[in-house]
């Protein structure tokens, strides 16, 4: 446990202004590449949620932020206590698809990222309702690569939006940024050094 004070959501978002692509990793082997890249944040999508301290320290030592997906890491339950554990470990943001946990995450003083999974047209309207209820700091839309195609169908979300899922090329990234995302989460290492200028 640490006394680390995480950044605000505004701080997090401002880092995306220079380098919009966050490094999504599913194992420790990719961490070194992520730390050596321009990616402002590392999104941890797999691993042992009960043994994160070394990873968190290394990410912070490199000057980056770390977000952990509560639903996907091993060893933790997606509930109040799982959130508390991650906050006390020193993560900067907690990602979950469970909207009811957003107030818990905010109360723990870390950035609340609500992951919205869109697979049907009818989910688009319910997404707005879900966000109004959960009030996250940031929403992450998956699969992000379809964002340009569905942008006209998606009601205004009024929450800063990340896009993740099947975003692999600079063109993919530029397209989702042009469609309104403020950042991208991707496991494609080639995008981790993408500079903001390309989507201007």
């Amino acid at each position: 446990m640490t006394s680390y004070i995480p950044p605000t959501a505004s701080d997090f978002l401002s880092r995306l202004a220079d380098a919009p692509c966050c490094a999504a990793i599913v194992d420790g082997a990719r961490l070194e590449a992520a730390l050596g890249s321009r990616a402002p944040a590392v999104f941890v999508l797999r691993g042992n949620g009960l043994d994160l301290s070394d990873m968190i320290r290394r990410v912070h030592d490199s000057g980056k932020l770390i977000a952990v997906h509560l639903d996907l890491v091993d060893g933790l339950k997606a509930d109040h206590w799982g959130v508390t554990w991650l906050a006390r470990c020193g993560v900067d943001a907690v990602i979950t698809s469970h909207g009811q946990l957003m107030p818990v995450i905010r109360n723990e003083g870390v950035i609340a990222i609500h992951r919205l999974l869109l697979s049907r047209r009818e989910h688009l309207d319910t997404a707005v309702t879900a966000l109004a209820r959960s009030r996250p700091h940031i929403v992450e839309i998956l699969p992000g690569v379809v964002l340009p195609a569905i942008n006209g169908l998606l009601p205004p979300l009024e929450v800063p939006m990340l896009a993740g899922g099947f975003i692999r090329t600079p063109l993919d990234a530029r397209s989702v940024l042009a469609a309104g995302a403020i950042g991208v989460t991707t496991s494609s290492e080639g995008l981790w050094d993408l500079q903001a200028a390309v989507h201007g």
Partner: protein
Amino acid sequence: MADGATIHLPRILVADTGRGGTSPPPGLDAGILLRNTDLAALIDCALSNGTPPAVELDSIRGLGSDDAAVAFLRDRLSIEIMLTRRPQVADAFAAAGGLALLNVLAFDSTGLRRSLHGHPRRERVGTVISPGLVLHHMLPSELALLVRPLVAYGLIDNAADALATLAVAEGIVVRPEVAQGIAESEALMRGVGLSPA
């Protein structure tokens, strides 16, 4: 009842609740997919039409997801094509001679691979990818993982996306308005001497 080996999967499955009297547009290789409805509507629709609809089992209120439900669909309603998220149910439906399509969620590349782990990978069990619109963005190596026949389902909201998706999938699920748009697009293409996808 048709033998599973000869079951025809329409290129276009038009999503419907079975209450609106929706019919596929003429001229298309299309059928009805019953979803988001209840058991009574399913029975009415299946028994009143010449061609039994495809059924999305998990969204039929009142219908279970066990062997009894599978037997009811196959033996009583002559349902030939069934979509489900449950691998065991897909397996049972295929064993009963139907064509099962296992619904696999594809929100990102790592999740896709995990979702495919439970696929029965047996004869007469294909794959539904949701949302279908991501098929355009999959790598050849990912497409190769998907057990055929392959149906794209979700967020396909216009004729152009539908026709592009049909280039990589055997079938798509769309709303009636989109199916109508496909019919008009294909009629136009035939009018200028082009073969539809």
